[in-house]
């Protein structure tokens, strides 16, 4: 097992290229600091559909079609599609990709889904089972509120620790050959549960999983935080990011400004009413596809550790008073000419 660097980390035998990525985001995300980075900003929260769920599927379809188009391929060239979302039984994904007619793996990793789909896709290619894999994830503020919290028109106050679910979808085309940044190592997260029960405070629930994953990754690859231009978690938000940094410092890995979080980047806390930041599968998916991917491609980032984070809760588990276990998935991306 020459590919395994440790209990959680693998190094791909031949780097897998990310030949294209696309991000389609909602109005509020478009008004945020990353607005210009997205491939398309959809002003209508319903995206021309008649329900929030169908709108989310539309985001998935749009992001995936754009990613494939940018890669210079057609949908028929994709050997597999990996995708997931937050809705029950992943209907956001199902109704988004059902007409693609590609062999499909539906994935649930809560908000860490983008990390999971990209990890699995890259491993599948490295294993020689596929040439091209389409990987993506989505979330929608309105469908998430409806499922996990309260109906939108209800007049309630949110606590300062809460986050806003990002509306949008991100997709990436992974390829055995082709130009683009490459995936080198993958660190798969373990479920970490430090007993947080507040479903409003998901940054706190996920921070221990993110810190544990980053620490495990650095140990198993024998690297230091300084070896990366960026270490980016998925959707911890401002409070969760600080908690993760504090936990990492205790583990002997002090973090500086190279460690940030997609939930911090995606919204402007001064102008936008988002409390702790952004969350949801699309938070890491659109930030990676829209903001980090082009930087990797242009060589402005040489190496980054991308760590989408997920809170593994359901409405049932929360109502039954269970804790909120967290998970994180790490992917090392390097700028490069691509795989050969």
């Amino acid at each position: 097992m020459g590919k395994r660097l440790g209990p959680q980390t693998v190094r791909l035998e031949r780097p897998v290229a990310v030949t294209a990525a696309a991000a389609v985001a909602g109005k509020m995300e478009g008004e945020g600091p990353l607005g210009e980075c997205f491939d398309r900003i959809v002003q209508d929260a319903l995206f021309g559909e008649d329900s929030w769920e169908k709108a989310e599927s539309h985001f998935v379809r749009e992001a995936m079609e754009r990613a494939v188009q940018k890669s210079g391929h057609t949908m028929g060239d994709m050997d597999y599609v990996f995708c997931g979302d937050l809705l029950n039984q992943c209907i956001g994904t199902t109704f988004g990709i059902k007409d693609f007619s590609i062999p499909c793996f539906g994935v649930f990793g809560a908000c860490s889904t983008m990390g999971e789909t990209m990890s699995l896709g890259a491993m599948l290619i490295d294993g020689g089972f596929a040439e091209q894999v389409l990987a993506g994830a989505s979330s929608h503020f309105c469908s998430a509120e409806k499922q996990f919290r309260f109906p939108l028109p209800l007049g309630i106050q949110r606590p300062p620790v809460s986050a806003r679910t990002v509306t949008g979808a991100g997709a990436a085309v992974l390829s055995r050959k082709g130009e683009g940044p490459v995936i080198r190592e993958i660190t798969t997260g373990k479920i970490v549960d430090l007993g947080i029960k507040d479903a409003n405070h998901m940054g706190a629930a996920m921070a221990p999983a993110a810190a544990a994953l980053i620490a495990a990754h650095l140990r198993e690859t024998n690297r230091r935080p300084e070896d990366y231009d960026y270490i980016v978690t998925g959707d911890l938000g401002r409070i969760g990011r600080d908690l993760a940094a504090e936990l990492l410092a205790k583990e002997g890995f002090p973090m500086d400004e190279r460690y940030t979080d997609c939930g911090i980047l995606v919204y402007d806390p001064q102008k936008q009413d988002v409390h702790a930041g952004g969350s949801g599968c699309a938070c890491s998916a659109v930030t990676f596809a829209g903001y980090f991917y082009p930087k990797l491609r242009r060589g402005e980032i040489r190496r980054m550790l991308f760590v989408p984070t997920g809170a593994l809760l359901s409405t049932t588990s929360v109502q039954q008073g269970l804790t909120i276990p967290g998970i994180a998935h790490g992917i090392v991306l390097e700028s490069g000419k691509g795989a050969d």
Partner: protein
Amino acid sequence: MEANERTKQEYAKMVERTSPKSPIGKNCLFAFLSGGAICTLGQMFRHWYFSMGWTEEECGLLVSVTLIGLSAVLTALGIYGRLGKHCGAGTEVPITGFANSVVSPAIEFKKEGMVLGMAAKMFLIAGPVIVYGTLTSMVVGVIYYLLGR
């Protein structure tokens, strides 16, 4: 990172220290002002109906119906929900908040059908209020009866 009890307790303290609290003072003030404003509006309607010649009892009924109607319309227009962000308990507690809590799930779950969607989910939030409101009034009623003997 062994998740033993001590680690969990230490982490809970860390979270407590790092997380900002809700601004209770400001929330209370806004709730007081907005809740008071809604009650004042109700009182204005009451005077108005009274001047039109309705009886005391009829006025009370009319005021409730007017406020509920107003809240339902404002909820449907998406205005009441936005008020709630600033007013909090001020818009949640009065009868208008009750109307908002019935109308909002009815709108949200309309796509799931008139029976299993809108009608079934309508009392998602108001249901517990009715159940425990009725229960509490029964308990209070029994105490009142016993004290009155």
